[in-house]
């Protein structure tokens, strides 16, 4: 990240906070950070206050509390400014926000990344590639998985089951 802040403390502080947020792994998908997932939405830091904006993925996702706690402990290490964590609902989180690099990391981790979200009226099932062997000969076992965001799939070629982050 190019530092053209010319030493402005607020900008330096904001950059440092974004770096710290980028080191926070998602509790359920530790291969990717909350920044790469699009959960961490905004940072506004001055010497008086640091405001971090998060967007929850699914309304019932219990990980948002763990993420908030992780944000607080990470920022407490780099700034003394009082921290305010704001939860923003609008616009609603979409799996389209997941960064391209994160999609590759998810696949390497063994979880198939989400397809592009399509309009509700055109919900033909996307073809999901097996993160283990790369085959597209896969089938959905269940629309629901171990967390609200994932579904269960199986590869018909290598026979490995895997989870898929749903396009949402």
């Amino acid at each position: 990240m190019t530092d053209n802040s010319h030493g402005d403390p607020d900008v330096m502080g904001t950059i440092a906070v974004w770096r710290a947020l980028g080191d926070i792994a998602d509790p359920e998908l530790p291969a990717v950070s909350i920044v790469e997932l699009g959960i961490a939405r905004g940072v506004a830091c001055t010497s008086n206050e640091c405001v971090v904006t998060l967007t929850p993925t699914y309304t019932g996702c219990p990980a948002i509390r763990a993420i908030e706690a992780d944000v607080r402990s990470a920022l407490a290490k780099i700034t003394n400014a009082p921290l305010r964590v704001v939860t923003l609902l609008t616009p609603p989180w979409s799996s389209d926000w997941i960064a391209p690099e994160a999609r590759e990391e998810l696949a390497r981790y063994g979880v198939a990344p989400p397809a592009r979200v399509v309009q509700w009226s055109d919900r033909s099932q996307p073809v999901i590639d097996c993160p283990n062997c790369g085959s597209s000969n896969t089938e959905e076992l269940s629309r629901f998985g171990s967390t609200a965001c994932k579904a269960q799939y199986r590869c018909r070629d290598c026979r490995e089951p895997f989870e898929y982050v749903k396009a949402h």
Partner: protein
Amino acid sequence: MPKAGDTHSSTTGASLVEGEEPAHDKGDPKSLTRGPKPPLFDYLLRLGDNDLVLAQRLGEWVGKGPALEEDIASTNIGLDLLGQARLWLGYAAEIGNTTEDRLAYFRDSGEFRNLLIVEQPNGHYGDTIARQYFFDQWHALVLAELATSRDARVVAIAAKALTEVCYHLERSSGWVVRLGDGTDLSHTRMQAAVDAMWPYTGEMFAVDDIERTLIDARAAPDVQALHMPWIAAVRSVFSEAALAVPSDAWMHGAGNRGGKQGVHTEHLSHMLAEMQVLPRSHPDARW
């Protein structure tokens, strides 16, 4: 789920610490909804209580689902609904000078504002699916309308919830078809299930003074106008499911004396007793 011993209860318990201490007497549950409140408060309770009560009902399937995938599906959907309930009740709590936890755990059944249909017992899986499908079909229509409300917060919550509820509807309508157009046994049971649940559907389209006020303010949808698209969708799904749409019958909650007005069936207080026993036993507990 808000159950005793649930390690995720810190998601709700934390707000007991973070929320403001309400001004009313802690021991008097009636004070949470009595006294002059804006119509929006009551309406938000209706939306939040639908989700909370149905989430609790779906949680009762944990470990008892007919197949592992369905156990997971029902509880995932319940989790979505619980998250949505927190958003609606959280907004209501701000208006009513209380906390979401006090609203969830310290109201008696007469103060709940959910539709009668969601408090009906689970029964067998066909009963659960019938209840779920009728509600999901209504829920998706209502949320789509609420996403155009004049209240920005309502829009934000509804838009977020709608993407999840569309999944719920896809699943429950799929199961209506599978069970209706299944074996002779599943068909018979499913027809009986939808027949039994039908008299609870009318209340979803009844408008009282509180909703009329919000409709005029363009904050809430006119659910009477949603009846025709709902029936059309039900007919379409039932046709595929080889099920007969029940003939019009007397509807529970008629005359605006239903769940939305706090007049509940005998089932709700039993469900609340189980749901609320832990915080009510230890009202001053802090996580």
